[in-house]
């Protein structure tokens, strides 16, 4: 029973981490709270619908969704955020909220307000090891999240691009003085973050077998909570906080004797950190 | 001469770096003191400690024999220590005269009684006089972000003077200025001195300080390495060594 909760928690933790990473990467290089990111997450799920009409295959769907969201992220930073980067902080913030709203409305107008099932039915096996039952769906999400995280780790820590991203996040002027093209680095952070969010959206669409216009709402505020707890701009913090949140939710749900609104936990955690340690776990 | 400001064995570290390793300096009333040292020596950190922006990890700072090292910047300003910044910090969208008025309002910000009163004719008069003193009177209604760097530096001095301070800390007042603007700043500093203000000037180009200051202290890597008249200091081998690799010493 405990292990089941843990696996469940790791799966949702993986999703939270993937989504929040986009926020962290963007905040790190641009210092903007990219609320619209949750709209890009939902876009990933909706792109699966289009993908399946072209070629009904899950691998193709992933590819299609991630490329679409990466492109969307690129366009957003190029045409919306970059031009207003020197404005007071409130301006990109409202722009982002406006974009998030617009995206949700577009999804509703194009695909309808209803919950749409994922275009392919998956039959998840439950793997039994002795007395422990491991649901296949959870394992799939967790494993896939780990794969993406591993790829991200490799990019951030072992490539020049990753080094550039970390340098720009640390101090843009110094990075530029060292010859780093911050424009491209920022664009790349958006592309990578958006692609991850798109993947997460698609995975959630698969896992819950549902796609709907406001599916970005809860992830929006949960990923905010994750980056606050983890430390805004810190990738390690996001990973720890993301998985931590997922696990904590699952454990509390499984073991508390009373009904606990699962979604409130992220919120409470966020308030506690804002009051006591606003820099978060790994923040500066 | 009596001591107006005393820095006693002040230490300050940031993470792994010891910016100040136990610095002691005394400033006499009415003195102009030069604080020099290569980049990264800790000069601005010391200013920030005196001004209340940082609090020393160890040691004390005394203003007229009263400890100020734990006070916030606005309290230090209230007590009579004003400062300028290495990189100018004007209130960008406010007009030149409003920049000065902000500081003139010092006494009104304490408590709540005067908060809803408007600046009066007297306040405007004082503001204009301060702007006259730094030669910015003609630009009083100009939005401050439109001013040149030299003008902004002078505005910062006017703003600092509006606090009616006894001590003024000038952080690299010549930075970024062209030759013809430098003279104006030197004149201004001399004028401040003649009014009886005690002044500490940070400047890492020693040449500019030579005629202005009576005494110089030299900081390097968070430590005081020399103290004396400008001539004594510029011939001090330790000082020369510290500056080796820097652009100009004399």
């Amino acid at each position, binding site marked *: 029973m405990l292990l089941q909760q843990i696996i469940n928690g790791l799966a949702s933790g993986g999703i939270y981490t993937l989504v929040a990473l986009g926020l962290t990467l963007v*905040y790190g290089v641009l*210092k903007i*709270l990219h609320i619209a990111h949750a709209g890009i997450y939902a876009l990933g799920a909706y792109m699966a619908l289009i993908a399946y009409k072209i070629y009904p295959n899950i691998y193709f769907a992933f590819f299609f969704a991630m490329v679409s969201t990466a492109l969307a992220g690129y366009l957003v930073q190029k*045409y919306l955020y970059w*031009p*207003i980067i020197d*404005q*007071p*902080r*409130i*301006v*990109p*913030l*409202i*722009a982002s*909220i*406006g*974009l998030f*709203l*617009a995206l949700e*409305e577009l999804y509703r*107008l194009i695909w309808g307000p209803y919950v749409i099932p994922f275009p392919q039915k998956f039959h998840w096996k439950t793997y039994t090891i002795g007395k422990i039952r491991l649901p296949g769906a959870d394992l799939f999400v967790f494993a896939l999240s780990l794969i993406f995280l591993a790829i991200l780790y490799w990019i951030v820590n072992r490539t020049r691009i990753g080094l550039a991203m970390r340098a720009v996040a640390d101090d843009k002027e110094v990075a530029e003085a060292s010859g780093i093209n911050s424009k491209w680095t920022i664009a790349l952070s958006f592309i990578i973050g958006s692609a991850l969010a798109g993947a997460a959206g698609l995975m959630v669409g698969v896992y819950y077998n549902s796609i709907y216009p406001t599916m970005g709402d809860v992830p929006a*505020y949960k990923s*905010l909570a994750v980056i*606050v707890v983890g430390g*805004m701009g810190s990738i390690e913090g996001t990973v720890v906080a993301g998985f931590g949140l997922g696990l904590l939710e699952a454990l509390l749900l499984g073991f508390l004797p009373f009904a606990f609104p699962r979604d409130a936990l992220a*919120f409470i955690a*966020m*308030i506690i950190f*804002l*009051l006591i340690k*606003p820099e978060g776990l790994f923040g500066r | 001469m009596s001591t107006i400001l005393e820095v006693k064995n002040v230490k300050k570290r940031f993470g792994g770096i010891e910016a100040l390793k136990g610095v002691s300096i005394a400033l006499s009333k009415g003195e102009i003191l030069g604080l020099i040292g290569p980049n990264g020596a800790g000069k601005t950190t010391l200013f920030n400690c005196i*001004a*209340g*922006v940082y609090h020393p990890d160890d040691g004390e700072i005394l203003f007229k024999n009263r400890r100020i090292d734990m006070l*916030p*910047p*606005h309290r230090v*300003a*209230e007590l009579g220590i*004003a400062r300028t*910044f290495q990189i100018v*910090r*004007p*209130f960008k*969208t*406010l007009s030149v005269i*409003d920049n000065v008025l*902000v*500081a003139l*309002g*010092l006494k009104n*910000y304490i408590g709540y009684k005067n*908060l*809803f*009163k*408007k*600046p009066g004719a007297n306040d405007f008069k004082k503001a204009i006089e301060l702007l006259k003193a730094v030669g910015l009177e003609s630009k009083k209604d100009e939005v401050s972000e439109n001013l040149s760097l030299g003008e902004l530096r002078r505005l910062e001095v006017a703003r600092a003077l*509006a*606090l009616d301070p006894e001590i003024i800390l000038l952080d690299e007042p010549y930075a970024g200025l062209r030759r013809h603007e430098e003279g104006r700043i030197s004149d201004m500093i001399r004028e401040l001195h003649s009014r009886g203000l005690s002044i500490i000037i940070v400047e890492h180009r020693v040449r500019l300080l030579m005629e202005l200051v009576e005494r110089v202290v030299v900081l390097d890597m968070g430590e005081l390495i020399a103290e004396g008249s400008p001539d004594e200091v510029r011939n001090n081998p330790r000082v020369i060594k510290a500056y080796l690799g820097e652009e100009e010493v004399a």
Partner: protein
Amino acid sequence: MNYYLTILIYIGINSILALSLNIIVGYAGQISLGHAAFYGIGAYSSALIATKLGVSFWVALPSAIVITAIVGAILGLPSLRVSEDFLAITTIGINFVVQAVFKYVKFFGGALGVSGIPFPSLGGHRFSLAAFAVMTAIFTVISALVAHLINTSWIGLGLKAVREDELAASSSGVNVYKFKVLAFVLGSALAGLAGSLYAHFMMFITADDFGFPLSIAILSMIVIGGIGTVRGAFLGALLLTIMPEVFRPLSDYRMLVYAILLILFMRFLPEGLIGDESIVWKKIRGKA
């Protein structure tokens, strides 16, 4: 006729709301994304005092203002210790928590809200709609005068200094934290006034009236109108109040158009229509 009076009353209430947020965001430069919460606190306090204690509107209104100011202080004191981006998140949090309290705590009526809120009356005679409109107009003018007073007095200078550069402000003798809290309290108090007017006008309020979308709408009012100016707050309130009416023929596309307008404004006209830096305003003044 009644229809137009109602719209005017909405414009008035929204103007007061916009002016109140302008003190926090426009003058002091703090990011508050949860202002609807204080609107709600004003509305609920006024409503509950009037219904549960049976007092008249004329007692409930000032009480609501005071209560909202106090809550503003209580919430502002811890929140304003943190830096900009955290304040944005914290204020979103405040909005959600306050709304949840109204929705789930029985004292506040829960999902059913508060009903039976008395319309203002004087000497036994219930106000006519026109009378309410006149009263709202008077309160709107008073709010504008308060905002103007703040803008042109020492506190205004201090707030604007905080907005421009906290370090320079502090070094010039401004107690940054104190001024931030003051801005928050003043903004909350005015929002409480607007809330009370709203409650006694609608005579029925629920938690859904005071959610995050409204906070964004109020923010949009001052940014579209021209942040930091009284005239901008009025124009923004006017535009955003009549917008749903004007857009009615668009029916299903209303929200999308609103969202796109927000984006376009932020992207191309962030100084607002008649803000100090706005091209439109400068042209009107004959400068640009």
